[in-house]
């Protein structure tokens, strides 16, 4: 067996994590699906034309549920009376990271999207408008899934870094980071351009640079560098974790 990464052990770890959280997961899933079913049924019955508008609601619930699920994935480690079991489990740090991430990202997404599809199908059928069903499968969905995968890594890091109330603490941390970034960029803009009116002339060097930064660099950083960076930080936080 490879001492750092073994696929069999990874599988056992994922199975264990699912079993350890199965009761709370089932309660959450049943409650959310139940509420959405009732809402979908009511909308489909009383306002069949609006059934298409249910998809954004499902996706908001999917995002929120995913963030909360991600924040709770290391609950055992964050519980003072259970952390010993998680930390002394003969599984490497890399496997603990990869196993947990696979559960909260791909496994969760596949399950949640399948649920959204079933709900959409059910509500469209009840409304007698199956033609509305393809509304789910448009290009925006892929972008939303990608966005979820990126933003979810913040909550993944929060699940490792904080020792309780991980979801709320991560939200607070994100809010603070956003404030600091806004203040920094605002301050930088003020320093560069002062209070005067500046117009970026077409073809000017500054405009070209700004376009390159915002169209090429920032998306690359957002889609690829940021999530990887957050996962790497999560790995080291997990490695350094003590009781």
């Amino acid at each position, binding site marked *: 067996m490879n*001492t750092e990464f073994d696929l069999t052990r990874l599988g*056992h770890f994922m199975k264990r994590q699912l079993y*350890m959280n199965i009761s709370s997961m089932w309660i959450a899933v049943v409650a959310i699906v139940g509420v959405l079913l009732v809402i979908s049924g009511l909308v489909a019955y009383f306002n069949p034309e609006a059934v298409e508008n249910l998809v954004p609601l499902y996706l908001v619930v999917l995002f929120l549920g995913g963030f909360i699920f991600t924040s709770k994935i290391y609950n055992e480690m964050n519980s003072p*009376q259970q952390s*010993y079991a998680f930390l*002394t489990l*003969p599984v*490497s740090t890399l496997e603990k990271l990869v196993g947990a991430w696979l559960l909260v990202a791909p496994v969760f997404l596949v399950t949640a999207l399948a649920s959204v599809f079933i709900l959409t199908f059910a509500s469209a059928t009840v409304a007698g408008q199956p033609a509305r069903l393809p509304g789910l499968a448009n290009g925006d969905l892929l972008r939303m899934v990608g966005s979820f995968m990126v933003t979810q890594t913040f909550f993944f890091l929060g699940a490792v870094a904080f020792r309780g109330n991980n979801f709320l603490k991560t939200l607070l941390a994100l809010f603070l980071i956003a404030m600091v970034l806004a203040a920094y960029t605002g301050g930088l803009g003020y320093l560069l351009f002062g209070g005067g009116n500046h117009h970026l002339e077409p073809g000017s060097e500054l405009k070209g640079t700004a376009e390159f930064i915002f169209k090429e660099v920032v998306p690359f950083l957002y889609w690829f560098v940021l999530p990887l960076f957050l996962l790497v930080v999560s790995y080291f936080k997990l490695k350094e974790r*003590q*009781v």
Partner: protein
Amino acid sequence: MIALNDIHFRYKKKKQLFENLNLSLQPGFIYGLLGKNGAGKSSLLKLISGLLYPDSGECRVFGYDASARKPAMLQDIYLVPEEFNLPPISLATFVNINSVFYSKFSHNQLQAYLAEFELQEEDKLSTLSYGQKKKFLIAFGLATNARLLILDEPTNGLDIPSKSQFRKIMAASLDEDKIIVISTHQVRDLENLIDNIVVLEHGNIIFNQNIAAISERLAFEYNLAGIPEGEVLYAEELQGRKAGIVKNLSGQDSRVDLELLFNGIIKNAPVINEQFAKLNYEY
């Protein structure tokens, strides 16, 4: 073998707990880790199992750095903590999802231990009492056949029959490859079980001796009347009489009273240790 070399450790914003701590634990023995509240027993066990990292120094467990928490090391360690919380699943499910990580896990042994402790695999962990949960964890830990078994206050919460079952099982489970470390306040529960006594006080190891050496060098008397004062190492009131520890001058092994010994060490460790100064016990 477990070796702690020059360990320094402190909790954040608290005073130094361990300073230049050195300890070596050999296979084939049951170690009794004794000490008052806050002496550092649980912290020491956590350092050994990689749950805490030393500020400096190294803790090596079977050749591995404990703080690296390598799976190869962790599958040879099982820790039963004093306080724990188990998931609301059945014993069978717990065994099913956790035993796979321990390559030497024996289901037959587990069945035998569970039968001894009168536990059923179909039971749900959430319906068990604290003592039953503890017995289950001890049974699981033994069945992993980990070379290092760490038990923090294992007899807390156990009823009287369970304590004797515990002693019986522990004594039977030891082999030449295993190291069992038992930390406890309840020293009487460990009598006739442990091979070595390690006493911690304010983060320092103030006593570390083999039971055979103790039995050879010290005698435990429950009436000190008539014993010359020069031979008395420690004395305390016991039901109107004076009981205590005296020098064993007879040359015959005495029965070790762990409670008296612990009290004597805490009261005046240098005097007790002096009796072992010229002793070089070979394992």
